[in-house]
């Protein structure tokens, strides 16, 4: 495990073992924040930041953490970074903070972060863990951005708040509500995994 090279880790996290469409983790936030691209970008940047740094911190502290309290220590470290993100958003970008509401705090419950600290950072050197955390965050980010792209385009007719579709386009209200994230995610999983299997079969 520790000998895995950097490119292999990135490939794994972004594609072969993507946290969202292969491991099906972090689904709650996929449903909640993907109706506009701006919210999704800020939220996923927050997740990338938190996964990266908590993996780094856990990895740095791993030789001091007693096994009995390791989960609690990990949760503490993760929530530390989440609250930092929350504080920064509230102070410097209040509009975004208002739009995301309680979801920033809910980054703590994102299984990807806990999963990466427990499965990877606990047993790997700090810089490699940071890299692993960042790439899993990015793996989460691009899937969510794809979902948000379709949902915002069809639900509001806009992208990043700019009107794209003509004004007489009837917005698909369902795209704005949580159920559509289920459809969109399922369609993405179908397409991406279908593509993956086809490649495997060809080999």
């Amino acid at each position, binding site marked *: 495990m520790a000998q895995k090279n950097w490119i292999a880790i990135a490939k794994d996290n972004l594609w072969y073992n993507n946290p969202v469409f292969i491991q099906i983790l972090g689904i709650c936030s996929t449903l909640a924040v993907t*109706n506009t691209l701006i919210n999704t970008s800020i939220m996923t940047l927050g997740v990338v930041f938190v996964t990266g740094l908590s993996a780094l911190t856990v990895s740095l502290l791993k030789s001091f953490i007693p096994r009995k*309290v390791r989960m609690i220590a990990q949760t503490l470290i993760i929530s*530390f970074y989440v609250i930092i993100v929350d*504080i920064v958003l*509230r102070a410097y970008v*209040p509009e975004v903070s*208002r739009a995301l509401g309680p979801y920033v705090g809910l980054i703590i419950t994102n299984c990807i972060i806990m999963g990466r600290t427990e499965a990877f950072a606990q047993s790997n050197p700090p810089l490699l863990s940071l890299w692993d955390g960042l790439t899993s965050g990015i793996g989460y980010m691009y899937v969510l951005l794809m979902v948000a792209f379709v949902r915002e385009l069809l639900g509001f007719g806009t992208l990043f708040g700019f009107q794209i579709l003509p004004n007489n386009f009837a*917005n698909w209200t369902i795209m*704005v509500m949580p159920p559509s994230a289920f459809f969109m995610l399922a369609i993405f999983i179908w397409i991406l995994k279908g593509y993956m299997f086809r490649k495997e079969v060809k080999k």
Partner: protein
Amino acid sequence: MKREGRVYTIIFTFIISFVFVFVLAVANELTKDTVEKNQELFQIKAILSATGISYQSDEEAFQKYNSIVSTLNNNGSEIYTAQINQENIYATIFSGSGLWGTITGVLAVNEDVSRIVGIDFISQNETPGLGGRIEEDWFKRQFSGLKIIDSEIKIVTGQNGGDYDYENGQVDAITGATRTSESIEKIVNETISNLKDILGVSI
């Protein structure tokens, strides 16, 4: 000391919690003023836009608020007044329950509470893209100058083309957000009757 021993575990847990919580407390303390100022500014902007005062920048909003708007205290509820075009305008902050959570905002009325001057929302948790559209301009604009009939307004589901009459005390509901629209009607009417009581205007 043994790493898995009880004493080490307790000391470790204590130290790690102390350090992380301490850093958070410092970060919170450092940004407290900015956060408070943001919230104040948000409320000020809402009051200004409800009373129909335009502003370009944050500084201008502060300045105009301080020079034009004055605050009356009435049995614990604050009334904001401003004189615009030789007429006194009264505004108050309301809050009431929407579909998912509390909706707070500002409602401004003219001196004899016969017309609404404007409405703006401070916080709401309605469904984004449905009930959440109460924050959009077209919805709020319907209230500006709306005549209050029998000390209430009505939110109606539109016939063809919508309701552009400001004399009939009616506002178009938001398609797909019936419950939010109903809540707004209730909240606004309650606020109108509160304002009447406070200002001593009889029907």
